[in-house]
Each structure stands twice: as structure tokens, then as C-alpha cells.
């Protein structure tokens, strides 16, 4: 009989077993490993969909540590990270948040899109992100010291030009920064082919299309097509969807809602395929 229930694991016990596919663009793997060895926190900068999260999974696999990912949003409070009292069978009980779990178990804690979190939230990671490496838990009067294996990483997209969405200097100056960008055309083509099932010619054209949309960054588009979007399109194409249709639904619609811009992006893709 097949097991229909999915596996339930505690995040701090979840190790990535199979190597997540990642193509290094420069020496980011070496730098991350060096930072990890020296217990320095890491900041991943780069546009959306260029492989930051995949890189973290890959590093977690490489370093053989569990990866606890927290997707930040504007309602994320400090208690969401550290922990809170819950009422369980009539008793109040303290339950650790993901950050506290990672600190206790020596996992990698990855705060995705950290600028989205409220300013007061980002401050709680400060004592963890410098040489103290402790997490104060005021509500239960504890100070948790991080194990040497613990690692703090966060990602940040500097492309948002909103003043509201910028990292405080006091936060960003604690981190080793790794800059990510879309890979070179040949590499990007390779990635798309590896992640989907399309031929070299089609992958090449998809990359070309992505570059066209990246030319439009700041000219009506906030961002060009990311590698992730290209992979989505490639997957649709390999399932038999017409390339023009695949580009429209997986890329053009994802990039903009504005009518003329949408039409222009669609004209670009219909020129290529």
C-alpha cells in the first residue's frame, strides 16, 4: 500500500538530501563557505528570480545543515521570529519561533526578502549578526547563545526604489554581501535546458527574449524577465504549449499589467518565435 500521508518533519530536522542544482556565476560558493567558517552572517543581494533561494538550498546541502526559511512580509513581528506563548491544553506554553529553533539547533536561518519585514523586526537579529551571536528572548528571560554551526542569511532586492523598502545601515553593515545578477547568456541557456526539457535553440531564444525585456527595465518595466520566469516558460513549452503563448502567460503577464507595455512585450516574443 502506498503511503498517502505526507512526511511531517520539524524544520530543524529537515536536511536536504539531494544536491539542488545550482550553477555558480562567480566565486559565491567559496565566499559563502568562508563566511560560514568564520561565523559571519551573509546578505544576498539581487533581482528577483536570479537564484538566491536556490543558492541557499545548495549551500545548506553543501554544508549539511538544515535550512529554515522565513519569508518576510510587512506583518512579520519579532514574536513571529523568536517565539510566543501559546495556550496548549489549558496551560500557557512557550513555543520557539523559527529563528530561535535555528539558533538552538545550529541550522541555517534564511530570511527571504527581509526588507518586507517591519523595521522593528529586523532589529532583533542585530545581536545575532555581530560577534555576540546571541538571541535575547525577553519574554522568557533567556539569552540563547548560537552554536558554531548556526548561520544567518538574508536576501534583499535593491531593485525596489522605494525609500520605505531599504535596509537600515545598522542592519546591512553587519553582513557579508554577495551580489547576484542574471547569469551570462550561455550559462542562462544551460540552466534553462537543465531545469526544463527544451532544446538549445529554444533556450537560446528564450534568453534573447529575456534580454529584450531587461533592456526595458526602467523604460516602463520595473524588472526584466528573471531566470525563474524563463524556466517557467520553458517548462510550459516542453509540455507542448506554443512558445508565444507560453511567453505571454508565464513572462509578459508576470512583468506588467499595463496594456501598451503588455502589447509591446508580446510583440517582442512574437518576433522571436
Amino acid at each position, binding site marked *: 500500500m502506498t503511503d498517502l500521508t505526507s512526511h511531517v518533519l520539524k524544520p530543524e530536522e529537515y536536511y536536504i538530501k539531494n544536491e539542488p542544482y545550482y550553477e555558480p556565476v562567480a566565486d559565491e560558493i567559496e565566499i559563502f563557505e568562508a563566511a560560514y567558517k568564520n561565523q559571519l552572517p551573509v546578505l544576498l543581494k539581487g533581482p528577483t528570480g536570479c537564484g538566491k533561494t536556490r543558492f541557499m538550498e545548495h549551500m545548506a546541502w553543501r554544508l549539511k545543515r538544515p535550512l529554515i526559511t522565513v519569508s518576510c512580509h510587512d506583518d512579520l*513581528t*519579532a*514574536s513571529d521570529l523568536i517565539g*510566543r*506563548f501559546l*495556550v496548549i491544553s*489549558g496551560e*500557557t506554553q512557550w513555543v520557539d519561533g523559527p529563528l530561535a529553533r535555528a539558533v538552538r539547533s545550529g541550522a541555517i536561518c534564511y530570511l527571504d526578502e527581509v526588507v518586507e519585514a517591519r523595521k522593528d523586526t529586523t532589529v532583533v537579529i542585530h545581536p545575532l549578526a555581530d560577534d555576540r551571536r546571541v538571541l535575547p528572548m525577553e*519574554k522568557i528571560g533567556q539569552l540563547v547563545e548560537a552554536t558554531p554551526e548556526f548561520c544567518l542569511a538574508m536576501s534583499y532586492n535593491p531593485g525596489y526604489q*522605494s*525609500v520605505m523598502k531599504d535596509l537600515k545601515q545598522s542592519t546591512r553593515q553587519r553582513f557579508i554581501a554577495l551580489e547576484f545578477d542574471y547569469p551570462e*547568456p550561455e550559462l542562462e541557456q544551460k540552466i534553462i535546458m537543465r531545469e526544463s526539457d527544451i532544446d538549445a535553440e529554444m533556450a537560446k*531564444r528564450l534568453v534573447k527574449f529575456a*534580454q*529584450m*525585456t531587461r*533592456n*526595458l527595465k*526602467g*523604460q*516602463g*518595466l520595473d524588472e526584466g524577465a528573471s531566470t525563474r520566469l524563463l524556466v517557467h516558460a520553458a517548462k510550459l513549452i516542453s509540455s507542448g504549449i506554443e512558445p*508565444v503563448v507560453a511567453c505571454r502567460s508565464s513572462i509578459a503577464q508576470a512583468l506588467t499589467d499595463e496594456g*501598451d*507595455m503588455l*502589447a*509591446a*512585450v508580446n*510583440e*517582442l*516574443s*512574437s*518576433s*522571436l*518565435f
Partner: protein
Amino acid sequence: MTNQLDEQQLTLLFEEYLETEFTFLYADDLSVDVAAMPREKQDFILHWTKSAAAVNPELAFQFATRAGNALNEHETEIIEAWCLEAMDCYDRSGLHKAMDTIRNLDEFLKQGYKRASASLFEEAVPVLLPFVQGLSGRRMKIEQDEVAWTDGETLYLPELMAFMDDRQENFQLYKILVTFLWSQMRYGTLNEPLAEIFAEYDNRQKAQDLFHHLELRRLKARIADEFPGLNKNIEKLALSLGEQQLQLQAEHQQKLESPNADIDDSLRLLSQLYLKTAEVPEPLCFHGVLKPEEAWQARQERMLKEKARLRDYLRVLMDDFMQGKELEQRPDKFNLKEGKSDQDRLESMQVEITLNDQPMPLPEHVKNLLRSVMIDFGEIPPEYLEPAGEGEYDPELLNDSSLNPEDVWSGTYHEEGAFIYKEWDSARQAYKKNWCVMRELELKHDDKSFYDKTVTKYAGHIHSLKQTFEMLRGEDRLLKRQLFGDDVDIDALIEAWSDVKAGREMTQHLFTRMHKDDRNIAVMFMVDMSGSTRGWINEAEREALILMAEALEMLGDRYAIYGFSGWTRKRCETYRIKDFAEPWDDERKAKTCAIEPKDYTRMGVAIRHLSSKLMEVDARIRLLITLSDGKPDDYDLEYRGVYGISDTHQALLEARRDGIHPFCITIDKQGQEYLPDMYGKTHYVVIDEIRKLPLKIADIYRKLTT
């Protein structure tokens, strides 16, 4: 049924509309013709004659004499469109052109038929521009011209494409045309002094035509390579348009179509085939034409400009690099990143430069410059990589010649940097396109003594205002008895506990949660700076704005203050006092103090302009508050009265359609008569006493936003 008007009645009306006293137009014959028509037609002709007469009596007269016959043959909608087109034509190109339209209804109908399925420039450009900018290479602009051509920087396109019966296909023609013109830039058609080369042939035009034909064959092959999808369309449309091609020898054809063919191949072939070729096939509508002289001149100017700009930027980069270093360490020049050929760079449009073997990160505009130079030369000439000396270049070369908007007042009229807006003509019930020229000016200011005076004068009032507004401010609120939250709600827990002990069901709502109230409001204050605000009114406006700004600083809503004034449609002005992103600092305070009466109140265009500014701000609620002292008004009598009010009304409708909430605060006691029409019944307030404006404004704002 109403009675027909007789000759006499008609003559009187026509004489009035056509101002025959001054124009000496003779209305009697006209009246004879019209008197024979049914009342319905008479009314129709009278109505449109009156509308057209507002534009030009002569035009109206010509319309009226032709309208009767035209009405017998065509629908009224067509006649309306014909009259409107003539009026538009008058706005655009003057009486002469307008009369042509009126005199030639057949031509108008033919055009109209074409237009019905045509792709129009103004509709296509919003799509074509991002399309062409998405293609690689130099960032192109698009403008309108009689024929389609390019100088390598700007694509000139015709007003409409109407060669096919289907609008979508006509748009495809535009798109293909744009791609062909772009390919001239991208693949180096304009990199040779073509005019000089053609001049060496005895028949210049033939040489140019033949070259163009050969070049098109080369470019077509490149486009086919690069854009397989577009190529299918090109072939299909070329077939239905009946493209003719010269028979070329197989080797020549192969040479032209090979991926490494360049302009020299086309030129070589030109010299070989010139004598052998009797007649060159006409290019198709999507091929465009060559203008060698213009393109070469644009190239010369561009090269000069770009060399200066690139080298000047490298100077800045070098200075940064040299900071804290000894002078001897200064490298002479930048280098291109090694390991790539010019061919690679041209292909990938990626030019990277290094200094002391270190790659230099470059901002986007410099990358664009490098690409542009690369396209002009096929390489980056070494001298372009030497940093300029301090002040080596004329600043005029470094910046786009920006004509100062203030110059308009000292006699040099220009529309550079100005915003062009349409205007609603109530008589025509249609927009006048590109009618108003709006400029954004800085307000000259000196000190903020008026601000200090006001703050002292209203010290008590400001204090209580701040208190009131502080209470409005979006604050963290502690929500109790929540299902989820940051902390345990002890009161709720105790209750729940006792419930459990008593054997009752326990509530799940046991937490407290912090909740942030976000006001997320952006407000634009549009301040009347017309001449009529002189004196008390102006002072009250300034005081009101100062109090308002103080209160808003406390509240945290984003706000901007713009003054507006102007003198006819060509000189509409807004004065930036404070923009949304700017702080309320001494400079803005001084600017607020410097608000002074200027000229007239052409309101529609100001609303359109400031609405578009407001739309750029990301906010949940957008407010446009007008401080005014009277009706819309301008120097040209036309804007006074119904016309101005309905244009303003129309502009407000447009704003509302965009989700903006307009509101008007006026001190005009007659405001009740026209404001309901303009702003709607509840969206204005008349302040009966000027002195109360400063005290009331914050109150009004509070009521509006809570």
C-alpha cells in the same frame, strides 16, 4: 413638430454666427438654400455652423454652404466627423488646410474609410516604442514625419499605416517598418558617408535606390536570423503587397545574406551592378527610405557629443579612483576587458571596461553610451577611453541643450521640456488635441519671514491643530481578544480559565496583537496664483497653506503644493512649491511665502497636469484640493464662461476616472453657481470670509479624510 425657419429668421441667425458685420460674408444665398430644408436639418446645420464659427467664421460659412448637399448624401454622423476634422485641422495647421478639408468631402470620406482600418501613429507608438527599446543596441526615439526614415537615433514614422484592410495587419506593417529602420542602426547602414558615395555615380538617385535595395536584402537576412517569428509575417505581407526583387546571381545573394555581410559588401555590389541594372524595384511601405545627408549629419553630431560625454564620465570615474592615491599611480586610460573581440562585443552589445585590470561597474546611461559608440564605429576607438581633462568640454556638449522655460517670457518661444495636454471644447463636444503647453517652473524665493510671522500669529491654533491631527495619526493599536497574536491576553485567559473550571466551553480568542493603522493618503494642493488673488486673498492662501503643512507634518500624510497660473494656452504654468518627496524645510517654507499673484486661471490643464503628478504617487487615497478665488479664466476670452467651466469639469472627470478625489475650497461667493457643475454637489466648500480660510482649511481636510 416645430415649424421650419424662414429665410429671414435664418439670415438673422447666420449673420449673428458668422459676424457678417465684420467678416463681410454674405448669408442671404445660404439662407435661401437652408430655408427649403426640414427643421431637423436646419437645426443641425445651424448648430454646427455656430460651433465652426467659434473657430473661424470663414470656415463655418464654407461648411454651411456645403452641408445641405452633403446631408442629402450622407449620414449626419459623417457630416459631424467632417466638420470636427476641419476644426481639428484648423487647430493643427491653420485655415488653409482646414478649408481644403471642407472643400473636399470626397477626399475626407476616402481618408476616413482608410482610417477606419488603419493603424494610427498615436495609437501604435505606445506599443512600438517599448518594442524598439527592447531590441538591442542604441535606445531609439520615435517621431512622426511625412515619410519613414531614420538617422540612427530617431525613427521617423508616417501618420498612419493603411495598406491592408485589417487594423492588426496594418499594425504589423508598422512593427516591421520599425524593425527595418532599427536594423539600419544596428547593422551599420548609416556608418558610411553615403551621400558622398552616391555622388560619385552619374545618376545619384539610381545609385541610392540600388544601394537601398541591396541593403534591404542584407538587413532582411539579418532580421530573419534574429527574429524568426517576425520573418514569417514579413514574408506573408511582402507577398500580399507584391514585393519585387532584383534577380541577383546566386553568389551575390549568398554574400549579402551571410551572417557576416556588412555594408561594404552592399557598396561593393552596388558598384558591380550599377551599370547592369536598368530599373530598381520600388521599396515596400515597411522598408522606409534613406536620407543619407541627414543621417550622416546626425552621426557627426552624435559622435562629438558622445565622445565628450563618455570621456567626461571617465574623468569622474578616474577622480574617484584616484582618491587617496599618489599622482604617479594614475593610469593614463581605461581599457576594454580583454578576451573579447570587437565582433563579440558588437554581437552581444556588452562593452566592459577595466582600470588597472579591475572591471569597472558602470551606470546604465554610460553603458548605453558605450553601446552607441560601438555601433557607430564597430569598435571603441582608444582615444574614447582617455578621461577628459577638467573643463575640457563645453558644458553644452555634455548636457542636452535645455532651453530654459523662463525664456518663453523673454521672447524665445519653445516647447522643450513642456508637457502638452488636450483641452475639452464644449461647443464641439470633442477634445482639442495637443492644445495646452504646460511648464513646470521653480518659484523664486528669498526668506521665510512670512512663515515665522504666521507661526507666531497662529501659535495657539497650530498647537490645537497638532493635537487634533495627532489623534488622527495612524498609530499602533493593541487589539485584544484575538485568535492569533504576539502576546497572551491575560484578562481573556483568566476568563477562559474560569470558564474551563466551570465546565463551560473555552474561547479561542486569547491573544493581543499590535495593529498598525495606515492612512496611506496623498494630497495635492493646487493653489490659484492668478492675478485676482492679489492682496488679502493671497495672504490668506499662504497662511492657510502654512497651517495646513504644519498639521500634515504631524499627521504624516504625504502632500505636495503646486501653484498654477498662466497666460493663454501656450503659456500654462505650474510652480513647484513642495513635491511629495521633498521635506517641509526652510526652502519649501520660503517658497510657500513667495506665492504671489501672477496671471490667469486656466484650470483644466493645471488639473490634468497635477493629476498626472498625483498618479505617480503610490497611495490608497489620492486627493486633489484646489484653493481658488473664482471661475476658470484666461486672457483669451474663449476660456471664460461655459468653455472654461466645461473644460475644468471634463478635467475633473478624467481625474475621478483615475481614482482621484477632487475637492475645491473657494472664497468666491458666487461659487455656488458653478462649482456644483464642476466638482459635484458635495465636493466643494465656499468660505464666506477670506480671513477664516487659514482657520478652516485644516478642519475641512480633517473632515475629508476621516
